[in-house]
């Protein structure tokens, strides 16, 4: 135990009591609590300004106030000695379905109108497990059943709070697109409607964008005519054009207010979407999975497109047969902002290992590899002004690691979100659930949310096969 974090002035027993009280407080924490903490004598991996040895980080009221040597602790601020340990920005997972009630509204090829912000379960113990892996933010995504799926929600892992308390305030809105086999399988093969092919996928996008632009013109014309009529009370009133939630979202994409994250594998479909987006003026988007992105890395870089990929996972279905463990390195070398994501409640607990693979296979620099789980996903989610690196003025979202995070032996020992400690390995009790079904007795409740063995196949396809159940569990 002595090797773990030790508060400067308290004995071990007191420490445990303090921790218990502290943890209890955080569990009951009201929405968006901000905390203060001074972490001393650590090796600070800033991501943007190199690694700083023997350095202190002061977080006050949720914001990083100072980084330097021998900082004084302001009154009332908890001090943690992290000598011999590493402090890293909280890991950000750009592709997660960690705590969604529903993942796929799979009943239509276009469901831009639905939003994962209305599918957030703030009570899942999986949130705590992600914190235990040094993760502080996730991009909770809609699944990949539809060509244009639902909007995503960027969350801070404030475990023990409400839906509102988990929101990453100020984060831009996002939306999921999906190309290739998933939407053609669900809608084309499953239901006999468009899209049945990759050509159809493109057509669905173009038709939807065109319809959204038509709607916008009609709606604006109506609103103008209405304003005129209401003012003068003369002439003939306009026929009302109802607000359209789906097309409002599509127009938000065209206007750059909503960032697209597109499920994709093959190089040809990646190029297709870039062509379509260039036609409609859509910028600042990210290809998710993108196993063949390395083939079109220069084109991606030229269009300013980002990628968010697995480190070394492929061949789980036909369209993913062609890939390489050098994908991340090639993209990085070609100037594409790339992140490594989990898409899994299990993998999210050790994304540092996934980043390490990029160093292992392609020889990417350690800092660039760590960028792929911190700053780069932050860029892709439009939150890099707030998180993703340890800099004065950024949010106090950090984790303390027992060793260099790229070491296979490194474990997260403490995780802070907005300066509030949500994970403390020294006080990691057995059962961290905050929501209990009173009707489940101990024996039944013991197997709660089992961590899946290995990878969760097709996490993106949850709920997509209600109609075609025979195909539901085939993963090709």
């Amino acid at each position, binding site marked *: 135990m002595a090797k773990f974090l030790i508060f400067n002035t308290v004995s071990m027993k007191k420490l445990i009591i303090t921790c218990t009280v502290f943890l209890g407080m955080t569990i009951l924490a009201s929405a968006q609590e901000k905390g203060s903490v001074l972490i001393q004598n650590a090796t600070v991996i800033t991501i943007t300004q190199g690694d700083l040895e023997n350095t202190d980080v002061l977080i006050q009221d949720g914001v990083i106030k100072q980084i330097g040597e021998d900082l004084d602790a302001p009154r009332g601020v908890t001090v943690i000695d992290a000598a011999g340990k590493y402090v890293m920005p909280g890991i950000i997972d750009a592709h997660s379905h960690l705590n969604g009630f*529903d993942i796929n509204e799979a009943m239509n090829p276009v469901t831009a109108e*639905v939003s994962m912000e*209305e599918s957030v379960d703030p009570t899942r113990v999986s949130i705590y497990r992600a914190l235990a892996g040094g993760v502080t933010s996730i991009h909770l995504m809609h699944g990949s059943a539809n060509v244009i799926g639902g909007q995503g929600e960027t969350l801070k892992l404030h475990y023990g709070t409400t839906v509102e308390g988990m929101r990453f305030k100020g984060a831009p809105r996002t939306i999921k697109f999906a190309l290739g086999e998933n939407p053609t399988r669900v809608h084309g093969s499953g239901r006999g409607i468009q899209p049945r092919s990759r050509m159809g996928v493109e057509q669905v996008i173009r038709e939807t964008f065109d319809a959204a632009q038509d709607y916008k013109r009609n709606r604006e014309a109506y609103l103008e005519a209405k304003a005129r009529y209401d003012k003068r009370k003369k002439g003939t*009133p306009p*026929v009302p054009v109802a607000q359209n939630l789906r097309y409002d979202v599509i127009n938000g994409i065209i206007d750059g207010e909503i960032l697209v994250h597109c499920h994709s594998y093959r190089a040809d479909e990646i190029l297709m979407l870039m062509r379509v987006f260039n036609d409609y003026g859509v910028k600042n988007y990210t290809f998710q999975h993108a196993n063949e992105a390395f083939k079109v890395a220069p084109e991606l870089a030229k269009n300013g497109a980002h990628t968010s990929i697995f480190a070394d996972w492929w061949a789980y279905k036909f369209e993913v047969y062609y890939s390489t463990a050098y994908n991340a390195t090639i993209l990085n070398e070609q100037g594409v902002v790339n992140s490594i994501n989990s898409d899994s409640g299990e993998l999210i607990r050790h994304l540092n290992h996934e980043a390490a693979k990029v160093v292992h296979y392609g020889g990417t620099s350690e800092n660039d590899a760590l960028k792929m789980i911190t700053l780069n996903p932050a860029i892709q989610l439009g939150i890099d002004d707030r998180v993703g690196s340890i800099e004065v003025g950024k949010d106090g979202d950090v984790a303390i690691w027992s060793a260099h995070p790229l070491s296979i032996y490194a474990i997260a020992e403490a995780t802070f979100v907005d300066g509030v400690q949500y994970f403390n390995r020294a006080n990691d009790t*057995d059962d961290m659930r905050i929501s*209990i079904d009173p009707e*489940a007795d101990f024996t039944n409740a013991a197997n709660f949310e089992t961590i899946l063995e290995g990878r969760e196949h097709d996490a993106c396809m949850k709920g997509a096969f*209600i109609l075609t159940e025979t195909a539901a569990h085939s993963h090709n």
Partner: protein
Amino acid sequence: MKSLYSFWVGLCLCVFYSTIVYAQPPAHALKNITIHHADGRISESATIVWRNGIIEEVGTNVTIPFDAYTIDGGDSLHIYPGFIDGMTVWGSPDLPKNPQRPRDPGNPGYERGGIQPDREPSEVLKSDSKEFAAAMKAGFTTAALVPKGYMLPGQVELFMLSEKETVKGVYAELGLAGSFTRAARGAYPSTIMGVMARFRQLMYDAKALHEHMGYYEQNPNMPVPQSDEVLEDLFPLIEKEAPLFFLANTREDIEKMLILKDEFSYDVVVVSGKEAYTMAAELKARDIPVLASIELPDTPKFYAASKKKQAAKKKEDTPDSDEGDAEDDDSGKEEQSEEEKAYQEKQLKAWKEQVHNIKTLKEAGVRVGYASVDMKIKDLGKHVKTLMEEVGFTEADLIPFMTTDVAAILGVENKMGNLEKGKIASFTVFDKPFTEKKAKALHSISNGQIFDF
């Protein structure tokens, strides 16, 4: 609500008219009875007189009219105001078992998509359903009914219960029902977020049609609006004329319900609200009432066992002996792990929180009334018992919760809820106080009509 008002005015006029023109129909009277009032008062050796479905006199100092058909209770009968079910699906036709798969699941049409605000219980109800007789035997005389359904299952209407035959057409429209229930398999919306989006789009469409119809009335030269019964049934929400009775249990669902309410600013009543206690302060601040389900979670087995043991021990022991700790007795059995103990503590806490839902809401000042929702009436006694034993509810808590408080939330408190002159004669005759063991309803007087069991 307007139609409700005109209904009552009409009813009153009818009664008034008939009393002048025709000979009065005979009155009924029950004398030498114990009356349990909604406000907790108990009048013994009392009398109640009603005529034409309306209470004429009630109390201990009552002159029984000469024409009254009188029954002497012999001071052994207990009279309770008829319980009012704030929301239930009694008599509703069942949902289709295997609804057809729509050709285009994303555009399944209103009905297949669970959007049926045009359904009226008075039209679809199986009014001879056994559920009504069972409810009357449990003390209910009135119920707000809604058909079983999905996100917008239909209208909410108030019914006077009547055994066997039709629940007579004594009903009034109260509002619309809503929930986050997904459409039946294979149609949009299949998720809660989909229901949210679909609801919003319906409201946008209804608003546009509403505006178009308004314009058209003034400007018959403009294109004719296309009538749409479903959208038109949402107009009361746009005009804020009727509340949306929204079924929501978890904190997250209640929050989402409030998001929609804020977007469209209609009135809302929480229905069921099993975890509404988590939102008590906000519900109070916004003055949003709850028609609460009392379908409580099952008592944790270990807790039920330890209580049983305690009770047995109490019986055994002399009154002055140490009550002891029931858990001490477990020492002989296999050792309970720390983990299990910790879990059980959590489980018990979660259970107690839910069991205390109604009390917590009331203490926070939220208006709470009773609703069966989809609870089987035979389970009523079990849950009432839990409320009494665990939460300490007494008759004085339960009666207003099931009568006047419901009436107030439904907006019919001027007509029913308690037993006083001028109110509808709906009450139940029990052989002993209804919370006592083996209490049985002997008669139900619903809207003045007598039913014997």
